């Protein structure tokens, strides 16, 4: 295989790895909503002294 072919293969690999699942080019905006399974750090936790957000109705802001 010629050097040109190796160079083309290497370039293709670099291009594919740039779009792979590490999230660099497919990453969602940080504020995007996704399923809870995708956000295990945001799953419901035992009560911590105040009402969890899922028990606050739409439009209500407590201060």
């Amino acid at each position, binding site marked *: 295989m010629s050097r040109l072919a190796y160079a083309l293969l290497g370039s293709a690999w670099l291009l594919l790895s740039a779009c792979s699942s590490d999230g660099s080019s497919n990453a969602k905006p940080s504020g995007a909503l996704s399923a809870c399974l995708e956000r295990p750090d945001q799953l419901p936790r035992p*009560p911590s*002294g*105040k*009402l*969890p957000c899922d*028990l*606050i*109705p*739409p439009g*209500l802001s*407590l*201060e």
Partner: protein
Amino acid sequence: MQRPILTATLAGLAALVSSTAQAHVSIASGPAFANTSQEVAFGVGHGCEGADTYRVQIDIPASVSSVRPELNDFGQVDVETDAAGTVVAVTWTKSETSVLPADSLYYKLLIRLKAPAQPFTMVYLPAHQTCRAADGTETVVDWVGIDEAEGSDVEPAPALYVLPVRFPGWNKYTVDNGVDDLKGFFGDAQIVWAGSKAFSVNPTTTELISTTEGASALTSIAAGQQIWVKY
């Protein structure tokens, strides 16, 4: 420290036993949904002074429609109608031979009915319980009391809580009539909000309401108020 807990537990048990013992004929199927046909169950928790229940009659108020009792193995079912053909009473009667010598069973009697289109109200269905002792003596207990004063001798009528149709998750309602009995109407809700006031039957959630800044306890709902309820 253990004694107060034990005392409170015994007091709670006594209250539970007391209320259960008093409620011989009551609604055993939870709240009904307004303007919807559904099964309503009447639980007969006890007979009369040790005698088995022989007959149960349920009076149907005018606000309830589409009444159809379900057959069950308690006994024969009879429907009483008025001149217009509207069902005004349903009666279940045991056969003579199936009356037990003692009060040992719990009975559940079912009617499919359509609750009135009046959410956040209560429908009273007076009941008449006839018991028959081993010697053939019959006793009738009328469960007909509606909004009786504390200590009244009149036994309470089975009370059906009527709620609006709901869906899992958040539900937004406007309450036409004021609601004081939050536990009765929202006993199976996760939480109820009216403005920044909230109510829950769950003791943990109730405590969180009290410790959450900006939130306070909801004790009643005024007529015309908008509420959020999560199921």
